[in-house]
């Protein structure tokens, strides 16, 4: 019975290709949205994990300026209130802190031979690599000695290397950063992309003293930010308080006043990111639901039309011995086949759209076979739900009336 029903369904759909194609559009879009959504969602968790490790372990992030929402103090990072002395103090006085790296960065053109490339130059200490859990794939980090003499040694990321050297080994070569010649002492291991498309490999790291003296020409000891790596995950909250307390004390901030700096926990940042993702997922999910609903109604509508067009056929089948279940099966299977075709096409579109979206937004996507199964099951289920009513209507026709139908 089911095999016969499937053959009849395919034949009937092939006879009305355009109509079938238009009908499945809604389901196609719905399933595509589901597939794209799950792919982005799955990709999100992977990339968030990866980003965690790319940003560093148990990282606290200290910016100058308050987080005040009153607007009195201005934006985060607006005033240079942090210095290398703060960084040294954190490192020296807080036991829960594993490593500290002050950061002073500048955008600059880097030149090698006839090639040049615009990138972000980060000035920091040798501890920077440790704080961010970055490793070198070649060469050596710059040393404390480089730090002391504002040495012209630098580390380059994979993206910079590709821009300037193609596949060649850059270690030992001298590039110009702005107008400052500088020797590459190490190549950073590739880290890939962040959740918002930041390219962690698009960077040059130098001694902070060199950036200050040769590139930024800033007097004093001001820094853009301080990265603090905490010894253990469970100490994060406590370390955050301790850093705050220490900086308040050093900056002599009276009891009642706000901080003139901000300490951010990486987890908080990730949570924000995750929220963005889940908002997007919810949006896609609601699009999917609406499209699937519309698609289902479309299937029901076209099946009702089909039943009424084929009333006489139904009468003939009944006259020669088709039972109501045979007729029910025939039209139900047709509806299921119709929406399953939409499901398969939607799966293909969803994979394509997910990949394209991921690429455009520079988000990582991951397609799971579960999503494919869910998509097909959903579309099949829609066929059952929305095909049932028309199929039952066909099955309950009176053969005499049906035979008389024009």
């Amino acid at each position: 019975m089911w095999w016969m029903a499937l053959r009849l369904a395919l034949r009937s759909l092939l006879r009305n290709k355009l109509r079938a194609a238009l009908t499945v559009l809604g389901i196609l879009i719905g399933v595509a949205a589901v597939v794209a959504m799950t792919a982005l969602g799955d990709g999100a968790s992977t990339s968030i994990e990866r980003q965690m490790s790319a940003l560093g372990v148990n990282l606290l992030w200290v910016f100058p300026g308050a987080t005040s929402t009153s607007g009195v103090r201005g934006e985060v990072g607006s005033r240079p209130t942090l210095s290398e002395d703060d960084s040294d103090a954190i490192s020296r006085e807080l036991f829960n802190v594993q490593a500290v790296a002050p950061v002073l960065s500048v955008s600059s053109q880097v030149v090698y031979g006839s090639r040049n490339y615009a990138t972000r130059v980060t000035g920091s200490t040798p501890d920077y690599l440790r704080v961010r859990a970055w490793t070198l794939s070649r060469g050596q980090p710059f040393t404390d000695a480089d730090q002391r003499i504002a040495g012209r040694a630098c580390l380059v990321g994979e993206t910079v290397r590709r821009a300037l050297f193609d596949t060649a080994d850059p270690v030992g070569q001298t590039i110009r950063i702005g107008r400052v010649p500088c020797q590459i002492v190490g190549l950073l291991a590739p880290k890939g992309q962040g959740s918002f498309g930041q390219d962690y490999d698009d960077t040059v790291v130098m001694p902070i003293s060199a950036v200050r003296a040769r590139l930024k020409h800033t007097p004093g000891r001001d820094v853009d930010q301080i990265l603090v790596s905490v010894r253990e995950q469970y100490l994060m909250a406590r370390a955050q308080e301790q850093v705050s307390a220490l900086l308040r004390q050093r900056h002599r901030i009276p009891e009642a006043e706000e901080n003139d700096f901000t300490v951010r926990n990486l987890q908080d940042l990730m949570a924000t990111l995750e929220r963005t993702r889940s908002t997007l997922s919810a949006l896609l999910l609601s699009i999917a639901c609406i499209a699937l609903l519309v698609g289902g109604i479309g299937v029901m509508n076209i099946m009702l039309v089909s039943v009424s067009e084929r009333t006489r056929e139904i009468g003939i089948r009944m006259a020669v011995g088709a039972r109501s279940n045979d007729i029910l099966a025939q039209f139900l299977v047709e509806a299921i086949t119709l929406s399953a075709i939409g499901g398969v096409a939607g799966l293909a579109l969803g994979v394509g759209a997910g990949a394209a979206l991921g690429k455009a937004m520079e988000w990582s996507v991951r397609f799971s076979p579960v999503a494919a199964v869910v998509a097909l099951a959903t579309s099949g289920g829609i066929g059952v739900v929305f095909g049932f009513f028309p199929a039952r209507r066909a099955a309950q026709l009176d053969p005499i009336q049906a035979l008389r139908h024009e």
Partner: protein
Amino acid sequence: MTDAEPVIRMEGIEKVYRTGDVLFHALRGVDFSVNHGDFVAVGGPSGSGKSTLMNLVGCLDRPSAGRYLLAGHDVSMLDADARSFARNRLIGFVFQGFNLLARTSALENVELPLAYRGTSSRERRDRAREALALVGLGDKLANTPSQLSGGQQQRVAIARALVTDPKVLLADEPTGNLDSRTSEEVLEILQRLHRERGLTIVLVTHEADVAACASRSVIVRDGRIASDTRVANPRVASPSAMAESSAAGGGA
């Protein structure tokens, strides 16, 4: 069941149609029996209840009152699915309007009743071929209804009715849509099946020369059987004689 037992035995059959609040007695107490090997023509004026009777005989519908034994089984109270089963096993239908599936080959049309029996596709094919050969359409297996003449379509319908080896073949005005020559072709086939295979046939017609081909003639009037007579010398349908007779302007 013995051959002496009638294939069709109806007693006190009534059929009441209800249209809104109006009740209409289409059949008012019909006793009607058909024996094995009978060829019965059912005549009568339009609206007298011939089709209503045929629908009941063919288990397409259920009587409002009365008892109906089909091949020994009481089918008066069967539900829709059981009637489908009875139609599939015991009845072959031929309709005025052919009622073939459009865009479907003659072979597949003839296979259809067997498909609802779960017959294997090979056996289906073989039996459908055989039935089509029997009606002289062995060379039109792949033609769809639109590629066949009216007479040929009706022959496909006869093949479809025969393919299940039914106890009785029911034909409601099978020649109503055909010209006189093709009518003769169809009647010739029915007579041959009756004569050679002992097929039991009930045929509705309001044309006297069609009724004359049967061996028994029943007239329905106002929902009752008005007369039921043996036909002494059934006319032998013959398309070629038909052509000659119209040329000669006389009877055969």
